[in-house]
């Protein structure tokens, strides 16, 4: 039962075939048994899990039916959960216990999900490999010499390794989609403004979104339906009643037009990787989809645009980590030197780099040339997508150019930034976008077949249609069902 989907588990718990308490116990045991090797969790909240499970079982006994009854949930540690340390994988939040819970997480808990613990991430969600965590290392369950991707590496590894059924992730430039692709799970980033950011520790305010990480598209639709919707605590949530995505999942793609982006030509990829995507596109056609060529001429400017806007916003969002009201303080002779020492000791290199470049991009004399110009480039990118979606219902492309790489393979920061090439443009335009498993390739020098993800993106607010398309592809191709393979291929405890 621990390896069932969220939909299956909720049904069974509501039908009283198994108890939430029982399931929580088994999930926690699975974590105890495996996480030493994987390192997905920074903190396990056993007591909290047991209490929530008891409440769910009591509600179910009372005749209530909860959409996520008993479903084991892992929470990315940049989302506040009352009474738990919330670290963002950073030393600067050492000791801070969140006094409130993020809205999106609360909605899942209210729906009956059981919080197992907080998962590892790149520090403050800045990174594409989870290597920037200051508090721990997470390994890809498919090959523990490789990264799980980032920044939601811990959440993705937890689901992939069977240490949680669903997890929350956050995506700013690809932080749900890229790791989901690396670990063979489904990762979904909704349209900007669909899910509340209240309680999500901000990285880039105009880009951050919370989304589900699950084993199946149907589970992602269920979790999304529960998370989405206006929140009075977040002024950027949209005032649109979300149409439930779960009932709209479809069996085939007849009548669906899938856009293939000219600029994302597969010829740029390694032959093994290319073959997987060519087959994925062919599979879409076999399901009845029409493949249409679309152009995103400014997509190439995505990384430059993103790496001005996101750091600019983060430089302001992270100013509050100053040693005065919570978290780490490294005391200096006066307040000025306390700020400097605290932030020097508390932030890792990648965070510092982004704060520096962001501060620079906003500074007097550079604001127009950098920040404003980047926001204009952003408009062009969004316009490109609007034009593209005039002729297709969804765009398909690789989620990443290659499978998970080895630890320390991308020491140069800019080479790491390029990992987000296919995910950043959608983030800049605020579009809903997901990664669904689409095949495997054995990387050069690698031992095990590593997963690849197909990225599907839709127009603004088209979650229902997008999840429907992804579901059809997933059901027909079953790459997601190879979740048991990590156990066979790279068993926990093996060399």
């Amino acid at each position, binding site marked *: 039962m621990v390896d069932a989907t969220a939909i299956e588990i909720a049904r069974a718990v509501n039908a009283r075939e198994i108890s939430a308490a029982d399931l929580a116990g088994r999930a926690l045991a699975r974590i105890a048994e495996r996480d030493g090797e994987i390192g997905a969790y920074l903190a396990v909240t056993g007591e909290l899990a047991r209490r929530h499970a008891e409440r769910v079982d009591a509600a179910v006994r009372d005749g209530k039916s909860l959409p996520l009854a008993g479903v084991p949930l892992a929470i990315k540690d940049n989302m506040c959960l009352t009474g738990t340390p919330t670290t963002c994988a950073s030393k600067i939040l050492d000791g801070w216990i969140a006094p409130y819970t993020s809205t999106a997480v609360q909605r899942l808990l209210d729906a009956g999900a059981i919080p197992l613990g907080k998962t590892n991430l790149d520090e403050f969600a800045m990174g594409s490999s989870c290597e920037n965590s200051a508090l721990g290392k997470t390994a890809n369950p498919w090959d523990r010499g490789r990264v799980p991707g980032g920044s939601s590496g811990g959440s993705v590894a937890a689901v992939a390794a069977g240490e949680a059924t669903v997890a929350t992730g956050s995506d700013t430039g690809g932080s749900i989609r890229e790791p989901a692709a690396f670990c063979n799970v489904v990762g979904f980033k909704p349209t900007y403004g669909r899910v509340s950011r209240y309680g999500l520790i901000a990285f880039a305010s105009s880009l951050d979104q919370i989304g589900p990480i699950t084993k199946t598209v149907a589970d992602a639709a269920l979790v999304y339906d529960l998370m989405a919707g206006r929140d009075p605590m977040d002024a950027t949530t949209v005032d649109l009643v979300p149409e439930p995505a779960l009932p709209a999942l479809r069996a085939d793609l007849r009548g669906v037009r899938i856009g293939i982006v000219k600029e994302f030509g597969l010829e740029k990829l390694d032959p093994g990787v290319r073959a997987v995507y060519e087959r994925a596109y062919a599979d879409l056609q076999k399901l009845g989809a029409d493949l249409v060529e679309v152009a995103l001429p400014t997509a190439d400017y995505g990384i*430059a645009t993103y790496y001005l806007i996101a750091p600019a916003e983060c430089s302001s969002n992270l100013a509050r980590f100053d040693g005065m009201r919570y978290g780490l303080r490294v005391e200096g002779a006066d307040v000025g030197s306390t700020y400097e020492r605290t932030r020097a000791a508390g932030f890792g290199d990648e965070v510092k780099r982004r704060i520096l470049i962001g501060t620079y991009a906003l500074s007097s004399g550079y604001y127009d040339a950098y920040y404003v110009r980047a926001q204009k480039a952003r408009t062009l990118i969004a316009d490109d997508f609007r034009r593209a979606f005039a002729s297709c219902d969804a765009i398909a492309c690789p989620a990443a150019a290659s499978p998970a790489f080895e630890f320390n393979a991308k020491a140069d920061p800019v080479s790491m930034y390029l990992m987000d090439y296919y995910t950043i443009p959608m983030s800049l335009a605020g579009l809903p976008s997901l990664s669904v498993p689409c095949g495997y390739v054995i990387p050069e020098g690698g031992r095990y077949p590593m997963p690849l993800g197909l990225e599907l993106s839709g127009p603004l607010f088209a979650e229902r249609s997008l999840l429907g398309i992804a579901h059809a592809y997933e059901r027909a191709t079953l790459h997601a069902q190879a979740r048991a393979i990590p156990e066979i291929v790279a068993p926990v405890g093996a060399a």
Partner: protein
Amino acid sequence: MASGDIDVAYVAKLARLALTPAEIEKFGVQLGALLEHVDALAALPVSDVAATAQVIAASNVMRADVAVPSLDRETVLDGAPKREGAYFRVPRIIGVEA
């Protein structure tokens, strides 16, 4: 659009980050590389383009002027790096923006 030498020491000061000379140099090189990449934006024709002010166009999102419960003070001060009674205690303020 200017690229090139970012005055890391000055920017670090603005951002209240203490950096060692080695870090200043290292970050200078790394950020210089990023800025070279970013320079590509100079090629884009943006003179007639409006900057994206908001990702999703909306306006007038506000709340009513109605009080809600505040946090419990002990919870708040428990998390403070230093407290004195009912207050947050901070180091002396000299030579800082006021």
